[in-house]
């Protein structure tokens, strides 16, 4: 189980990388390699060229930019998991990483790699959707941005042109004291989620929901924002009634993917149950945060 032969490129700057991406045919970008290398070892993926981004250090960054948090595409998952800044501004992200594979994988795996690999069961696109991420991409011809809601072109295919690469993403910072929760269900700890939920909530002094985001992975090709549930819960008191209302809406999701191991109905059931649990935790944390 060794990769098929390829030509290896190791650019040192973003410009060099963009030149390669813009000119080489049948090339794959190598970020952390934790998803790509298994596929190459199995010979599912056989690019003629491999563009290793690990020396493009300018692509790794964790920065606060006003009301937003910026993650460079080549930032290691472990760096995000253990970052005090991320812990302070986006605790949802830190909690999500506890469910992402294993430490050895997080040491090498990158945020951008996960966003571009775009596995439907993946946690990182899920929290990015909850945090209204805006993806920044570049090519030789310039830069552009793609809101997370438009990032998924189709199954495991982001809306990147052939000559583009992702440089980073900006996530919204929720106000101090907000509630959050990331929960997933998988057969073994560290596996891809069968279904995962990310919840963010703010409450007013009367414990009414003022803002809510619910994002699901493992349901469809793109992470699913439960915008109907979000809209209907705003204004409701953060209690069991709100939780049950959200669970009823979640149970009725239309398009749900299925495979030989997990039926659509099972995924819907997981989505409903996990959404309920995540809301309860998020409400509790928000109440604690408001004190």
């Amino acid at each position: 189980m060794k990769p098929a032969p390829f030509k290896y490129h190791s650019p040192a700057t973003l410009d060099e990388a963009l030149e390669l991406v813009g000119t080489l045919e049948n090339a794959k970008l190598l970020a952390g390699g934790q998803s790509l290398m298994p596929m190459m070892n199995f010979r599912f993926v056989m690019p003629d060229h491999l563009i290793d981004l690990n020396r493009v250090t300018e692509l790794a960054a964790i920065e606060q930019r006003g009301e937003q948090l910026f993650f460079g595409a080549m930032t290691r998952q472990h760096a995000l998991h253990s970052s005090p800044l991320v812990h302070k501004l986006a605790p949802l992200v830190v909690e999500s990483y506890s469910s992402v594979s294993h430490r050895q994988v997080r040491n090498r795996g990158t945020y951008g790699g996960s966003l571009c690999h775009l596995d439907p069961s993946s946690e990182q696109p899920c929290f990015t959707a909850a945090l209204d991420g805006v993806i920044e991409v570049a090519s030789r011809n310039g830069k552009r941005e793609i809101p997370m809601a438009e990032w998924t072109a189709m199954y495991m295919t982001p809306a990147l042109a052939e000559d583009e690469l992702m440089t980073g993403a900006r996530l919204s910072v929720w106000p101090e004291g907000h509630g959050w929760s990331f929960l997933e269900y998988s057969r073994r700890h560290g596996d891809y989620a069968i279904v995962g939920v990310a919840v963010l909530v703010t409450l007013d002094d009367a414990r009414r929901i003022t803002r809510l985001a619910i994002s699901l992975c493992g349901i469809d090709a793109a992470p699913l924002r439960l915008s109907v549930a979000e809209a209907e819960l705003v204004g409701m008191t953060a209690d069991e009634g709100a939780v049950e209302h959200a669970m009823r809406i979640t149970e009725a999701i239309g398009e749900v993917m299925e495979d030989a191991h997990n039926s659509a109905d099972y995924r819907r059931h997981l989505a409903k149950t996990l959404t309920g649990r995540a809301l309860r935790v998020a409400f509790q944390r928000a109440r604690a945060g408001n004190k």
Partner: protein
Amino acid sequence: MDKRVIKVTVNNQVFEREVETRRSLGDFLRQDLGLTGTHIGCEHGVCGACTVLLNGNTARSCLTLAVQADGAAVTTIEGLAAPDGTFSALQQAFRECHGLQCGFCTPGMLTTLTELLGENLDPTEAEVREAITGNLCRCTGYQPIINAALLAASRMRAARANEVKA
């Protein structure tokens, strides 16, 4: 064939070799350098037998290309004992607690636990279990491995306390 010359420091020794760019780090260590302590299990990153330390951080050597280790420092199982062969606290504890039977997962377990104890000298049992979720063992049922890790941690804490006193 696409080849490159790489210079890698492995267990404090510098090696310069020409490799095919598709050569994995695991195969480089085993085939090119003869360091067969690192084991290849699944070759797709789930079993953990191939785990080494790359610039001090655990990494799957089956998912890392040798060319990516150019200029880097790698520590394998062969580099955990002292130069005179004295076992590290972890290795000694594994021996005493029967933290291995066939030994196939052991190099990966040791490098992973070396990283854990390097960051946290007082882990809870739950933290030890969490740390080794990426390393599969078919023989021991994990408990002896966990016992060994906790024993090593307590000894390392005691040794550090003695150093501080001295």
